[in-house]
């Protein structure tokens, strides 16, 4: 007789098999383009994980993905499809820039909490309006958040060619922040303890991202509001029966989601570029959607997906850097294949793997629509 499916099947074997499949697909694509697959693989893996710098960049990218993924996932848990992480992050970054440009004389130990707070507030503000409109006017969150992305972008351009402009610059960027407002990089923090690390933009906001993962998990699965959030997302009828104030939950959730998105600014603006640029979010908000869903809207899953994507970004950058025939389109192609095989087609291998291991499986249920 066949055996029941063990726990590691769904949570280890299947994801690994999917990653494997994605890499096979990537290898085929690279091979078709006449690129030395073995060398490319080596460059990618070594680039992402082989050096302190590589790891630093991987984690640095992962930080953005964690914030964006958590923001999307939290809203998703309440049944809200927040496409607006992009705009919320921009506005969060704006808040940080204002603090850093006009509020310098604070020690880092106070400044960091302040910028956390301000980026959260600004991001939350940008999510609040769509949230409120959804709760009280029934406006669809997808439309409003798309629109608010575009509005945020315009607002930032306006400020950067106007009030926040650095003189003598041809680009729309703000003045560079004073050095004492820069977030401590992991490199500097380590050297404080006598450890030398290779340089990378990885900074303390990565630790904050990990804390946010933990906090989100705790919030969703161990607090009352989190419980209510999930019920609202799952079943409105059930929420009504449970006496949950649905509008309140929608607004709270959007505020928190916006705050999480706003934290991207910590890593990008205060941690890395030290100035406000128009496009510093460059798609993290959208990739966050894929991250959130690939991570099954669970903080742990999001963490793993973020690390995978961070590695992919960094490895991809190395690939494009080192192999001339690999351009950015190839890198996007590789990312797309990973999203496809690890996300969209995550269940494709399941039946055959179950057969392979002779596990007892429920046959496909044609009827359970």
């Amino acid at each position, binding site marked *: 007789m066949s055996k*029941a499916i063990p726990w590691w099947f769904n949570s280890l074997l299947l994801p690994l098999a999917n990653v494997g499949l994605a890499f096979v697909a990537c290898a085929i694509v690279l091979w078709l383009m006449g690129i030395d697959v073995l060398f490319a693989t080596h460059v990618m893996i070594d680039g992402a994980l082989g050096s302190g710098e590589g790891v630093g960049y991987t984690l640095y990218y992962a930080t953005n993905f964690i914030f964006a993924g958590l923001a999307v996932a939290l809203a998703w848990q309440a049944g809200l499809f927040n496409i607006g992480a992009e705009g919320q992050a921009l506005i969060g970054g704006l808040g940080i820039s204002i603090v850093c440009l006009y509020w310098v004389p604070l020690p880092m130990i106070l400044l960091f909490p302040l910028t956390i707070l301000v980026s959260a507030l600004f991001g939350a503000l940008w999510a609040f309006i769509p949230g409120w409109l959804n709760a009280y006017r029934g406006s669809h969150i997808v439309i409003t958040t798309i629109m608010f992305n575009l509005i945020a972008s315009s607002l930032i351009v306006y400020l950067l060619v106007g009030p926040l402009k650095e003189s003598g610059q041809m680009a729309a960027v703000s003045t560079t922040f004073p050095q004492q407002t820069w977030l401590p990089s992991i490199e500097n923090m380590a050297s404080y303890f006598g450890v030398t690390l290779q340089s990378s933009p990885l900074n303390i906001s990565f630790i904050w991202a990990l804390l946010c993962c933990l906090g989100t998990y705790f919030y969703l699965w161990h607090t009352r509001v989190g419980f209510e959030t999930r*019920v609202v997302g799952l079943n409105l009828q059930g929420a*009504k029966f*449970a*006496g949950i104030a649905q509008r309140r939950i929608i607004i709270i959730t959007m505020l928190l989601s916006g705050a999480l998105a706003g934290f991207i600014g910590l890593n990008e603006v205060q941690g890395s570029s030290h100035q406000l640029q128009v496009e510093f979010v460059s798609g993290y908000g959208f990739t966050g959607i894929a991250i959130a869903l690939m991570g099954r809207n669970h903080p742990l899953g999001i963490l793993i997906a973020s690390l995978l994507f961070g590695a992919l970004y960094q490895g991809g950058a190395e690939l494009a850097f080192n192999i001339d025939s690999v351009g950015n389109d190839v890198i996007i192609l590789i990312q797309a294949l990973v999203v496809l095989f690890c996300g969209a087609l995550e269940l494709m291998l399941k039946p055959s793997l179950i057969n392979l291991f002779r596990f007892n499986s429920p046959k496909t249920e044609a*009827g359970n629509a």
Partner: protein
Amino acid sequence: MLAPALELRHIDKSYHAVEALNDASISIAPGSIHGVIGENGAGKSSLMQIAYGLIQPDSGEIFVDGAKVELLSPLQAIEHGIGMLHQKASWLEQLSVFDNIMLAEPVTGFLFQQKEKAMAKLELLRREFGFEFSLSVKMSQLDYSQRQLVDVLRSLYRGVRVLILDEPLALLAPSQADYLNNLLVLLKIQGISVVVVSHKLAVLHQLCDVITVIRTGRVIGCIDPHSVSLREMSKQMVGREINLPHPRVEPSKNKGKVLLDIKGLRVHGAKTGRKSTTKLLLRDINLSVHAGEMIALVGLPESGQDVLLDVLAGMVRFDGGAIDFLQYAIRPKSRYKINKARDYGIAYAPNPNFNIGLVDQLTMAESVYLGYQKQDFGRWGLLSGRQRHQTCHQLMMEWNVVPALPAMQTGLFSGGNQQKMVLAREFSHQPSLLLLNQPTHGVDVGAIETIYQRLFELREQGSSILFCSTDLDEVMSLADRICLFSHGELTEIFNAEDTDRTRLALSVIKEAHDV
């Protein structure tokens, strides 16, 4: 001998943790009425869904008219002349009856031509079987039992030869019983075999030619109802003696003070479209309920009894009158919502058909907090996972919910077990007033016995209970007083001792035709 119209042999089916069917076989003789009984979670629905191609068995064989077939989808089952009426069925409310019936009909020839032909054929069938709805009316305008009949009509249109009725509860309601009887006879005349899955053992005992008993996924035998008594039948099913009909719960001896006082209660219907004339859902209801009293609300479907429960539970707003409960004065303007109701000590178990008392995708351990999250999550709104798990497990043991796995998704429990969990939750908060809508829908006879016992205990502690039920046996076994509803009015209040089942049934039906 004729080959059986439908035969399932040696069916195995297991879900990840649960073995739903184990070597189950059933054989439906042509032109017979075949009953299927079993406890909640025994696997009846699973077996029927396999016969309809909705789910695939892990192993086993299916024969139609003696020929082996494979049923990979309902379409294939339909092509083999199998039809099914699902208990928790749902329809496309926005479409007409006709469109619902023709939903998956293959298109042949020109649209209008086909439509005309189909209309004619359906009209003929409708007359023949005496269905009283129009084909062009919207599905949302029909009541639940009529909607079920739409499914029957579709099966007839498609030339059904084996019709499976999985707990056609609404059809089995006393007011509809004659109707079902006639329907079955008509079907039988046409040579159509019928399979009825139900917990209404008495009805099955009366109607069926043969009854199959399933216990924990195994078929343990076939009963000839003509030679086996109802009591014996229930014993076979549950494995222990059950008195059927359930004996009357002792009436309360000492009526307490008035707990709930309803005066001149009025509820307008929701405004439909632009028409400003709104139907009154409830008009001028006056009722006082004493502590320790159990009151039944009966009437034809949609006569207002459910609305009263919803109003008391804070799910529906009322527009006039007054409700006084304990020391609380509830008025149309007071923002009375369901959390208020729970704070006051009112608990509510909604109609299991509507599937709102639980959230399918939560684990059972979480569903158990639905509605009580304010009370149960501590001061900071925190609650540990382990604590939740334990509470839930304890309730599962107390109420004999199978499988007793708190971490299993709520939606995966069988319908009856879900209902038990809802009741377990509401009971566990020791309400002063308990509101129940169809409390034993889909619950097996063994469990009903337990539920009645619990209700009795709760009442003894001085709580009052208000319940709606279409099962008059249940009403007779439980109620101290019976309120008869008709077209939104409370027309009569009986004392249970002063009436009997037949008189009650007559009144219910009479009211309907009076107006």
